[in-house]
């Protein structure tokens, strides 16, 4: 499937009605190769729903969603593994694709989890599990990567490293990424385009545009918005994986 604009998915005026209630409505967005789009918004604003619309998980939607790729990887917000199912990290890595051993190893290496390879999936901590979910998605070498709160339960240093990693994935695989996150000020600096949701698209644009948008400031409160803007302007250093900070050369 070729597309001259590098577009991977296109949502036009998309909405979902469940039990006479709109979970989200009127969302238009386009995910392109090599770009990161971030969805932000309060709880229940329709972020996960929008991600699921993008993935085609809703049978009945208003508006349209067009997909131009089949190579999709998804990191859901939460996933429950039934106790009746014995499954190791290694088995989980191969869940929807057939990977070579070295592909599995290198993906686990990148997310800092090679020691977990033969562990039972249910024995992992929340943060470990989140990293394994990321590793599985990366190992698939997708064209479109949908990440629903991928850093839940990961400690702060690890969180920053994971966001650095997401940026790196987008660059090296040249894949489009749809990212949902709560941690606004870390996320924003890595993003090409931000969509702020509150049941509908409240505002969207570059991170700076959104940060300076009145509606956004109303939704999140002035203080948080300020942190965001400050962070955006003062991003002159790099957070390394071990948590140390390195000055960026100008």
């Amino acid at each position: 499937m070729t597309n001259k604009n590098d577009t991977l998915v296109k949502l036009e005026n998309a909405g979902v009605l469940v039990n006479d209630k709109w979970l989200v409505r009127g969302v238009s967005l386009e995910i392109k190769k090599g770009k990161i789009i971030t969805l932000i918004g309060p709880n229940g604003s329709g972020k996960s729903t929008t991600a699921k619309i993008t993935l085609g998980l809703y049978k009945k939607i208003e508006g349209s969603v067009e997909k131009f790729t089949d190579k999709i990887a998804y990191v859901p917000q939460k996933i429950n593994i039934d106790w009746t199912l014995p499954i190791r990290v290694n088995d989980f890595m191969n869940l929807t694709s057939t990977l070579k051993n070295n592909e599995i190893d290198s993906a686990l290496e990148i997310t800092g989890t090679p020691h977990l390879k033969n562990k039972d999936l249910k024995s992992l901590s929340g943060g470990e599990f989140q990293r394994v979910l990321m590793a599985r998605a990366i190992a698939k070498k997708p064209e479109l990567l949908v990440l629903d709160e991928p850093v839940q339960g990961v400690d702060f240093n690890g969180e920053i490293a994971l966001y650095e990693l997401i940026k790196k994935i987008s660059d090296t695989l040249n894949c489009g990424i749809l990212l949902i996150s709560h941690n606004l000020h870390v996320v924003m600096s890595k993003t090409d385009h931000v969509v702020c949701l509150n049941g509908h698209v409240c505002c969207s644009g570059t991170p700076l545009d959104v940060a300076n948008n009145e509606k956004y400031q109303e939704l999140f409160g002035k203080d948080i918005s300020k942190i965001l803007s400050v962070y955006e302007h003062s991003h002159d250093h790099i957070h390394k994986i071990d948590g140390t900070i390195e000055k960026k050369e100008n």
Partner: protein
Amino acid sequence: MLDDFFVRALLVGIGMALVTGPLGCFVVWRRLSFFGDTLAHSALLGVTLSYTTEINMALSVFVISSIVALILLKLQKKTNLPADALLGLLAHSSLAIGLVVIGLLATIRFDLMGLLFGDILAVNVNDIAVVWIGGAIILIVLKIIWKPLFASTVNYELAEAEGMNPEKYNAIFTILLAAIIAISIKMVGLLLITGMLIIPAAMARNLSDNPNQMVIFSIIGGLLSVIIGLFASLEINTPSGPSIITSGLILFILSLTKIKKKSQLNN
């Protein structure tokens, strides 16, 4: 060799265990044991259908069980009732209808005990062919759909998002389940077939730490249950179907000692 009823019973039992092993794992993983029961209950209706219309019993049971399974899938979407209530509704109403039809056919001599508990010692060469050919088809289909079915068992949304089409493969799996019930009802009967699916898989769960291992242990457990059960039934003259299930239960109890050791090590 096939003249000997015991050899025939062994052949049929072994063929069945090879199929119920892997299918049973999915039944346990997907929490479908009550679903299997429902299909088995509805099989009675299929059996009476075969008596009245004189079509092959395995075929009529397969058709009726598949229809009941599809009705269930439909009802689950349409109503707000929980799955277990729907299953109970379908299980008992199809069983009741089956019994009513039997009542209406009072002229036909009916071996109800044989139907409920099966009679593996009475199988003929035809039955062996049905089990082995039918079983081979089920295993081949299962092998083909293994990956998407397993992915949707682990997580439905993840499988769907990544293009594995779980709805389709769930439906195919349901049909496979109806098929194994259809081909084995004559051997272990409709009350015991679910036991044959679940008990070896449950035993295998205690011994395994990955899915493939569990499937292999489940097959081995099923084979051992059949062989031990049949020999026991020959030696001490117990009913064969229930002896097979009882052997399975004993293996399960033995497997419990293995988990105990495991958790002590972990602590």
